């Protein structure tokens, strides 16, 4: 199917280059996806009600989810994202290539059985190819990076599990931190839902309440980005611009979100 002239093809090629954000935000999207799944957020009702996944696969995916939350904590997450940003554009256009790095952070995105496939450079093979031994290989990423505190991950996988070691106090503190993180995620989801429902003031109330209670939350960048969106929806242009400036000032390293705050406003 060919038929476009050279000028048109050149435009399409430049257009593709301009869409590198797809890879730039991949790490952020994965972390947010896992958080939303963890809090049990239901899927959008895109047609009829979807049947629930089987218990076995739910369990396997929870394990993946927990390990992946782990893989995207703090500095490890930023580092992974920056590495993606540093890749050549031609690499970034290939989804598998962006995740095919050999470092621990990216490797932790992959299932156990992924290493042989990557080594064979067949990560882009059609997913319809039969799996060698699927049922016997739980989809849990390999060794987590040291900086990501595996203890927390285990609890995220089983939120109600009771610690049974002498490190009770430390475990309790971690449990409390997890609970706070989950509350943050729930709040952001409610704010996002309010925006989708056309209720920017409700979103702002939620977000500002959160900013008062937890100014330094790990999710402060996401929260402040939503504030900009809510102010725009509420037709408070001057406040939105001020919030966008504050965002750039307060979260200068939130590269992917900075891009959203700036470019999301380019209009359609």
């Amino acid at each position, binding site marked *: *199917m060919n*038929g476009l*002239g050279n*000028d*048109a093809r050149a*435009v*399409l090629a*430049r*257009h*593709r*280059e*301009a869409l590198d*954000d*797809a*890879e730039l935000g*991949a790490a952020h*999207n*994965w972390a947010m*996806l896992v958080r*939303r*799944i963890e809090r049990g957020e239901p*899927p*959008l*009702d*895109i047609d009829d009600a979807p*049947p*629930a*996944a*089987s218990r076995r696969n739910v369990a396997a995916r929870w394990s*993946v989810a927990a390990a*992946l939350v782990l893989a995207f904590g703090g500095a490890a997450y930023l580092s992974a994202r920056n590495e993606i940003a540093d890749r050549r554009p031609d690499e970034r*256009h290939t*989804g598998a290539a962006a995740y095919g790095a050999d470092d621990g952070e990216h490797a932790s*995105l992959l*299932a156990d059985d*992924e290493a042989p496939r990557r080594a064979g450079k067949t*990560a882009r093979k*059609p*997913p*319809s190819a*039969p799996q060698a031994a*699927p*049922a016997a290989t739980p*989809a849990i990423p390999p060794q987590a990076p040291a900086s990501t505190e595996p203890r927390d991950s285990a609890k995220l996988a089983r939120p109600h599990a009771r610690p049974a070691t002498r490190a009770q106090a430390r475990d309790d503190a971690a449990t409390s931190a997890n609970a706070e993180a989950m509350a943050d995620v729930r709040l952001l989801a409610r704010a*996002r839902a309010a925006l989708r429902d056309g209720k920017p003031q409700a979103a702002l109330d939620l977000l500002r309440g959160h900013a008062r209670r937890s100014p330094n939350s790990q999710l402060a960048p996401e929260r402040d980005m939503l504030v900009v*969106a809510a102010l*725009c*929806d509420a037709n408070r*242009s001057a406040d*939105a*611009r001020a919030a*966008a400036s504050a965002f750039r000032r307060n979260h200068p390293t939130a590269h992917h979100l900075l891009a*959203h705050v*700036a*470019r*999301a*406003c*380019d*209009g*359609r």
Partner: protein
Amino acid sequence: MTLVTSEPPFVGLSLGDVFRDHQAFVWRSLYHLGLPRGQVDDALQDVFIVVHRRLDEFDGRTTLRNWLYGIARRVASQYRRGAERSAARLRIVAPPPERTPLAPEESARLEAAELVRHFLDELDDDKRDVFLLAELEGMNANEVSEALGVNVNTVYARLRAARLRFEKAVARHTARHRRESRG
């Protein structure tokens, strides 16, 4: 001896596998389906929440990419219902005026992106699906036909019409550019 196994063929596919291999495709599809950049990330997560819930239902009768595209279309459609709000929102917080001028290559890329995006927004849904899958995702006619559930002749017809319009849009853009650079 049983001829039919009790396990579906894709039972070992994890959410991580699907996300790693296809998130970029889903991201681009959502963007090309008309979502503002500021919503694409949220919508992408929504697509994969559906995937997480429904991965067991994927039986390999179509390619995974086609299955994902079907989900992305429906999620995009949900988002577009609130598009007026978003469009108003996204125009407000413009990039800072003191921003350094873009390098010529970057400027050309953004211009091209804007042109393609505007073109896709103006195109009707049927032609847009075909154009973006064929021209932007590199699918062949059979793959597009399978993804959209229409016959191959229809794919060719829609693609011809979409290409014609795109050529005209590019020609108009080039002519305007020449006029501006002369004047």
